[in-house]
């Protein structure tokens, strides 16, 4: 009885926040490379995902914390990062004359935003505000599965469904009406590594990239974690042995 209650308490502790906002929609479950204790980001997928973000998503969605220099963390060489940055113009200044000016971006610059402000973004998107994608994987219940589900969830609406003007039907989005038109179509990008650019492939790649953008220190965290856990296991065993030895005389 007591054991069962303690187990129930532990289970409730772990489950409480999940029960709080139960997902209303069935999410496609994918085996992500970064899941689990030994899961790590797949650098090739991250680079392909960056390409999808850059060529497709970044037209409407910003990444407020992403700097060009961060791209070296997904395996792009420093020289290539410099070249990628130089393709963008950023505003700088004021100069000695007090004027703002534009110059080619440097690795230390943030990735440019698609719109100068929220109203400009709304005007360009039929009144809808495209959310910033930097934390999107952590900011949605369901995480990577949810983002992947949205990207692959566009279908024709059921016959009796009343779809709003300029809206699109999505099986995963809450309420099923999403302002974003289907962003991906086959061969939307051309992968340098020869991977076939199917919609599920691009969706998976860009989701992996967004997962990295939301939690860039995950690889470092899990690597350190394994060492810490092993150390603590040994330490705890030694503590237990010490305790047993000390107490042997007391009973």
């Amino acid at each position, binding site marked *: 009885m007591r054991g069962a209650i303690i187990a129930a308490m532990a289970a409730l502790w772990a489950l409480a926040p999940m029960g709080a906002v139960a997902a209303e929609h069935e999410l496609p479950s994918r085996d992500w490379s970064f899941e689990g204790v030994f899961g790590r980001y797949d650098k090739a997928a991250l680079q392909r995902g960056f390409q999808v973000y850059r060529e497709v998503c970044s037209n409407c969605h910003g990444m407020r914390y992403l700097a060009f220099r961060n791209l070296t963390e997904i395996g792009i060489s420093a020289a290539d990062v410099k070249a990628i940055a130089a393709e963008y113009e950023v505003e700088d200044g004021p100069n000695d004359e007090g004027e703002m000016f534009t110059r080619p971006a440097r690795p230390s610059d943030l990735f440019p935003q698609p719109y100068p402000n929220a109203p400009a973004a709304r005007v360009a998107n039929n009144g809808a505000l495209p959310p910033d994608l930097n934390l999107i994987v952590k900011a949605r219940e369901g*995480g990577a599965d949810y983002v992947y589900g949205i990207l692959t969830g566009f279908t024709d609406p059921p016959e009796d469904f009343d779809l709003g003007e300029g809206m699109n039907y999505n099986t995963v989005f809450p309420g099923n009406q999403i302002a974003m038109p289907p962003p991906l179509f086959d061969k939307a990008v051309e992968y340098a590594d020869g991977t076939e650019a199917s919609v599920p492939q691009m969706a998976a790649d860009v989701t992996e990239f967004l997962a990295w953008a939301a939690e860039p220190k995950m690889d470092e965290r899990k690597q350190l974690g394994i060492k810490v856990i092993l150390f603590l296991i040994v330490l*705890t065993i030694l*503590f237990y042995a010490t305790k047993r030895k*000390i107490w042997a005389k007391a009973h």
Partner: protein
Amino acid sequence: MSQIPQNRIVQWIEYRLPIFSFMDHHLIDYPTPRNLNYWWNFGSLAGIALVIQIVTGIVLAMQYVPNSDLAFDSVERIMRDVNFGWLLRYLHLNGSSMFFAVVYIHIFRGLYYGSYKSPRELLWWLGLVILLLMMATAFMGYVLPWGQMSYWAATVITNLFTAIPAVGESVTRWLWGGFVVGNATLNRFFSLHYLLPFVIVGAVVVHLWALHVHKSNNPLGIDLKGPRDTLPFHPYYTTKDLFGLGVFLLVLALFVFFAPDELASSDNYIPANPLVTPTHIVPEWYFLPFYAILRAIPDKLGGVVAMFGSILILFVLPWLDTSKVRSARFRPIYKQIFWLLVVDTIILGWVGANPPEGNMILIGRLATAYYFLHFLVIMPLVGKLERPRPLPESIATSVLGGGGAAAEAAANKMEKA
């Protein structure tokens, strides 16, 4: 006394400030009941959890910016650009959950073994004061990242004060520092979130002071009768506490390194937006039972009173419990209702996590009613009607043999459970 080195410097200091004999008295030679089980580890663990929170918190405060326009971004900067900032933040975030888990077990241990009874009433009160301070601190800390849940938690909780008759509106505005939850609110919450942990430290010192007057309660719930009943704190309980610490750190590390956001709400990774209300506003897991009690009462003021009452009622527990026997080991009926209370609290937590719809409302109300019934009716009655089993003569006879075999059997059973 025997432990103090005969070193001249030590003696010089000792003569002027007897710090060495103080430490010897309270940490080394300190007589501790020899039969404490592992449930007694959670007091020292709570102290360590507090230290972890203060140390990580002070370093986080060096990088965090308490401004409603910058707070969210500054937390993300800590996660990305501060060396091991992610580790500090995840330790602090999950450390708070561990702190509450440890303290709740500590409190339930006190309930089971009757640690609140004479002469430990003030010790119990000080513990409850620490719990209330912890809750205030945790709530204000949760607001600091200024995500959606931060903002809406601040809005919901501060709005509770509007329930106060007549002055509610002005009190709430005074708490906000304005007409809405905003930058002024964030600033004062940061200030208080930094201050209150040190108030907790003060309360902990007095808690320990009171503890060391009559010493720890023990699983048998009987008084210490002589030196045969005790062991010196060091090395017996220092080594036992260290083993507990190892297990505690393992659990904390599992969360920090492999499930750091498991206990957090994904909505808090969306920057605060006063124009968009999240679908479900849910507090952290450690507030869920209280949240369920708040929502169980259909009246706002009534809900607030019930919520605070659920903790305040614990202050009168030493007088609501009419039994002379402390430990539930010798109280066959109380032992049953204790576990019913544990189950009731879990049900309340589960109700608090779910939207108040359908059966949840009814279950929440029944569980809330039972919570108060337990303390106000069942406990006083059980104390009067129950026939406790005979108490052992002393801790020593129970633990070391020589009579009280039944009690020893009970003790062994407890240890293995």
